[in-house]
């Protein structure tokens, strides 16, 4: 499971000295809440200027890891340096150089969007006039100028998230923590958030984002660490990760449910994998190593006289990633991750 990590050129596990090329280097980070071991020995190496994705289900330890790196939680064990500063001994130096957009909006619902930004700008040391200018600038850039004088209570989910991210960028940080930036957003708002992340990365800010969606990590991240039960279980570029899982998942719907066993046989032979019967009796899916092989499988199915109602080739879902990496499905913990 550590293969991907060991192959990667940037891995610094085991090295003790700070590395100028790394925005985050963590080794053995651990944190428990009561008897729950939320984070259980996480090693991370996040290259400067990259977008780095922490991928995992609810309760995997992503938020707890992020909170430790952002100096909000002390680790029980392990060490981490963020932008060269120790997160415990030099917490204040870390705080001066990073920003955090948490999973739950940090905005004041009673205040207007503009007041929220002025408030943060003042806390960062801007004088009153500059704070107002900076707020106006950010509202404009984030498409919130029209809503500037409305109370945040009236904002949509996407507007809140954008304002929350804007609040993190009042001073452009060297490293931005984004905890589940698109959870609960509609596709349009999600695209807007993605665009912001890309613009940030283009400007040289390192972004550490957590997500439950492989798709999102794939779209944004240069490297991904898959987290499960408080541990990193795989690490690499999206390409490496997907290669280790197969290009994607091939879904088929047959015209005739009776043909499913024979279709499964054909697929197992041509794609050299184990097909899964879906709940729906005419459907089945199988992980597909590459599109060419899928074309061949379609050919074989036609030759065997098996008629298809529809088919699709999609990226593996988080569940499928987890199935492939761990042999179990991503289980959303019943317990909320520590807020």
């Amino acid at each position: 499971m550590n293969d991907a990590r060991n192959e990667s050129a940037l891995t610094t596990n085991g090295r003790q000295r700070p590395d100028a090329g790394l925005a985050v280097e963590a080794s053995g980070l651990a944190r428990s809440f009561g008897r729950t071991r939320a984070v259980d020995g996480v090693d991370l190496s996040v290259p400067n200027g990259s977008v780095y994705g922490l991928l995992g289900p609810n309760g995997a330890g992503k938020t707890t890891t992020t909170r430790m790196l952002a100096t909000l939680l002390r680790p029980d064990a392990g060490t981490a340096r963020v932008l060269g500063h120790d997160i415990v001994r030099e917490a204040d130096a870390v705080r001066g150089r990073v920003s955090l957009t948490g999973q739950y909006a940090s905005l004041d619902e009673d205040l207007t969007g503009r007041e929220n930004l002025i408030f943060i700008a003042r806390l960062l040391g801007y004088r009153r006039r500059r704070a107002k200018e900076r707020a106006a600038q950010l509202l404009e850039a984030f498409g919130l100028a029209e809503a500037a004088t409305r109370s945040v209570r009236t904002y949509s989910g996407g507007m809140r998230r954008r304002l929350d991210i804007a609040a993190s960028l009042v001073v452009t940080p060297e490293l931005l923590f984004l905890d589940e930036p698109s959870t609960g957003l509609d596709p349009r708002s999600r695209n807007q958030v993605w665009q912001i992340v890309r613009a940030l990365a283009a400007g040289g800010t390192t972004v550490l984002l957590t997500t439950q969606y492989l798709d999102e990590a794939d779209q944004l991240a240069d490297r991904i660490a898959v987290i499960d039960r408080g541990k990193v279980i795989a690490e690499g570029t999206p390409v490496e990760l997907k290669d280790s899982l197969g290009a994607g998942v091939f879904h088929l719907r047959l015209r005739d449910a009776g043909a499913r066993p024979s279709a499964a046989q054909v697929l197992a032979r041509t794609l050299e994998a184990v097909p899964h019967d879906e709940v729906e009796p005419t459907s089945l899916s199988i992980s597909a190593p590459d599109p060419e092989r899928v074309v061949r499988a379609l050919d074989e199915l036609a030759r065997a006289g098996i008629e298809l109602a529809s088919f699709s080739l999609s990226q593996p879902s988080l569940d499928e990633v987890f199935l492939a990496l761990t042999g179990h499905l991503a289980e959303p913990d019943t317990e909320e991750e520590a807020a």
Partner: protein
Amino acid sequence: MNTTPAPATEPLHAVLAEGPRPARPSAASAALTFGWRALLKVKHVPEQLADVIGIPVIFTLVFTYLFGGALAGSTHAYLQFLLPGTLVMAAVLLTVYSGVNLNTDAATGAFDRFRSLPIWRPAPIVGGLLGDTGRYLLGCSLVVALGLAIGFRPGGGVTGVLAGIGLAVLFGFCLSWLWTTLALILRTPTSVQVIGLVVLFPLTFASNAFVDPRTMPSWVRSVVRANPISHLIDAERGLMQGHTPTTQIVWVLIASAVLLVVFAPATVHLYRRS
């Protein structure tokens, strides 16, 4: 995937290319910024003030006009006795909202944001309470204004009234640390509010706010006499009538100091730990 027009990429790049980071604000400046925010909340959600001010206002009117004559011979005479009591009631009830607001911040991601900023760590709490002091001042002034409008005639004049309001606000500031401590222990803003009112209502009634305790059974009288709110009300009555009730003021200051010394460090400790 990149077809969504807003937010436009160009201004986004421009806004990210912001110049140098400003110097860190001083502890005082950070705290004052939090105070500014607390006052903005009063401006945007004045009903929050009305909630709590409503109770002393109604009590002032009900007790004066319904019971006043029976209790003191005339509504006018009773109002002179009652108003310092309802003023204190307003001041102490308002303090609960400091806890409610703090708990709201803790429940949302606001705390995480504040604690990830390079500012003086207790600034959110100290600043919030400074802003709240403004709220107490406003609340107390409203009750006094109502009193003056319906016939309250303090013998101590402007100085006496101002001194009275000042003492009530000072006590309120110290008492509010109790609720900020609770706010960092309890789960929801509502539980903070409920506990606050459940504690404060009996405390306000088991005082000399509404009637002279002379007719009470002796064990109740000893409770009333030990109640710091009684001391505060006595001090208020004295100040507003133009006396200097030194003993009572000293008791109030001692109670305030105890609240502050116990609960301010407790709040800051819980805040750092959370």
